[in-house]
């Protein structure tokens, strides 16, 4: 968790332990403070957490592996639409989140590989353009697949997604502790998302120092040299795309179920760029940076 400590540099260098606790305290206390300014601010925090997840995933692709992806939002869309198909009145399927989440992650990863395969040979700006095109294609399909068979419900999107239910807890309902005291559902979502984000951070940190992470770094810095020392750059690239896409897919599910509806509008190029901005802003290849960028 060193990266966490470094998020507050002025304290992190001198006293990492204290800095770590400070960050955790802020993360836990933030919604309580935000609540004083109104419910919308808690919502904003919830969305900030989702963006952190997205930025973390994109950071894998752009920052670690050095592949500029301008269509990242497509995976987010795949996740959100998977949730919409499997858990909404649209097809009258109501699967629990434990099935939706892995399935969405799987589909997103597949989409990542589908995109990854053809673009293996491309680098730099060409890669950026093709990924951008991929994002647009996905959006165009979502926008138009309501005819002749209604799959995505077109530009109107799909409404009334099932809320997340964890062990019989419906996250969309306020929890009645006593007669007067109730915990708002926004808080439940916040802590659930926070748990996801923390899980992802730990995962990514372990990944970064693993064989795979080091291989990505080598590939990013010099592809030829990486090949020469025996790194299978093809598999590594595909892995980067699919892992990054998985993160996108998972945050897509969370987004869809949290918001309750999905429509193609939420997945425009603008969003891809916004996430990219977060990553670039926070410093490419830096976990804490991605988080700070997303919160901004």
């Amino acid at each position, binding site marked *: 968790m060193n990266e966490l400590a470094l998020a507050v540099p002025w304290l992190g260098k001198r006293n990492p332990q204290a800095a770590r606790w400070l960050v955790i305290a802020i993360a836990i206390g933030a919604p309580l403070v935000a609540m004083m300014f109104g419910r919308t601010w808690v919502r904003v925090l919830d969305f900030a957490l989702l963006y952190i997840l997205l930025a973390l995933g994109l950071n894998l692709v752009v920052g670690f592996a050095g592949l*500029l992806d*301008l269509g990242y939002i497509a995976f987010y869309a795949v996740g959100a639409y998977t949730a919409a198909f499997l858990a909404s009145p649209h097809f009258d399927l109501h699967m629990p989140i434990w099935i939706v989440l892995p399935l969405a992650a799987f589909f997103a990863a597949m989409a990542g590989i589908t995109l990854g395969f*053809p*673009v293996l*040979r*491309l*680098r*730099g*700006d*060409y890669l*950026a*353009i*093709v990924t*951008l*095109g*991929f994002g*647009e*294609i996905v959006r*165009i*399909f979502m*926008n*138009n697949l309501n*005819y*002749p068979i209604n799959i995505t419900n077109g530009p109107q999107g799909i409404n009334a997604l099932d809320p997340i239910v964890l062990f019989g807890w419906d996250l969309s309902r306020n929890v009645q502790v006593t007669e007067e005291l109730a915990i708002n559902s926004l808080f439940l979502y916040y802590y659930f998302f926070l748990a996801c984000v923390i899980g992802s951070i730990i995962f990514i940190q372990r990944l970064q120092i693993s064989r795979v992470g080091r291989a990505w770094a080598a590939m990013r810095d010099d592809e030829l040299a990486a090949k020469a020392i025996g790194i299978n750059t093809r598999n590594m690239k595909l892995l980067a795309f699919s892992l990054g896409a998985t993160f996108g897919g998972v945050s897509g599910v969370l987004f869809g179920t949290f918001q309750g509806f999905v429509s193609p509008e939420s997945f425009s190029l*603008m969003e891809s*760029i916004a996430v*990219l901005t977060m990553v*670039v802003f926070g410093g490419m290849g830096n976990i804490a940076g991605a988080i700070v960028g997303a919160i901004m």
Partner: protein
Amino acid sequence: MEIFLQQIVNGLVVGSVYALVALGYTMVYGILGLINFAHGDLVMVGALTALQTMMFLMGVAPGMSPIAMLTLSLLVAIPVCMLLAFTMERLAYRPLRNAPRLAPLITAIGVSFLLQTLAMIIWGRNYHTFPQLISTTPVQPIEGVFITPIQITIVIVSALMMAGLVLLVTKTKLGRAMRATAENHRVAALMGVDTNMIIALTFVIGAALAAVAGVMFASNYGIAHYGMGFMPGLKAFTAAVLGGIGNLGGAMLGGIVLGLVESFGAGYIEHLTFGFLNSSYQDIFAFIILGLVLIFRPTGLLGERVSDRA
């Protein structure tokens, strides 16, 4: 058969607009290796500036002849775009000329959004009707095939502009300097070429073409709004890659081919997929072509450059 001919006509018209825009992309890429994302938005600025001028002229001199009005508005739109491109190059791209490869690309995207947002502030979010000063009553050279005078104008004007550009690049001193700079900045500078000037001029020339393309594009469809430049911009880039980026002839060929593919695709996709996909999928053809070209023939139809350079 009529449908087939009609699609050729449509494809040629759209394609020649793409080709004009693609020239701007390809010239800048040839010299700097930069994808100037904001180029598509110059198309939009050109169209909206021309629209503004026309509105003004209609207010001041209502009896003015359409041709004069169109010419005057072009004479306003072109310098505005040129100035914008010059500023853009000076402020956004020149400081980044030696930066790592992703920085200029991301900056270009930023400039593109900046232009769109500015245009949104100035002209609002609405779609504006663009006055169609050249008649849109179709003529029928062959029974069942419709061509409007404005479409004919578009094809002729584009052809003239492209011919002019080719002459400029191949026959004049400026063109020689441009080619030298594209070949190798440093050596060109040693030979006494003011490379900074040449690069700025490349942007400016591209912007002039974009302004004309913007006016033609808007006149053809009769609408203009702040986001109109993005899609044509992307497609024009696709056209440039298709023809072989950095190659003028390639950009023209690519534009025409892309226009034809797109209109044929939109016309026939419904039959080919048994009604499953319809013409609202028109936009995906450009991206599919782009992907295919980059995978199977990264140098484009006419290009010699290697796509690997980033």
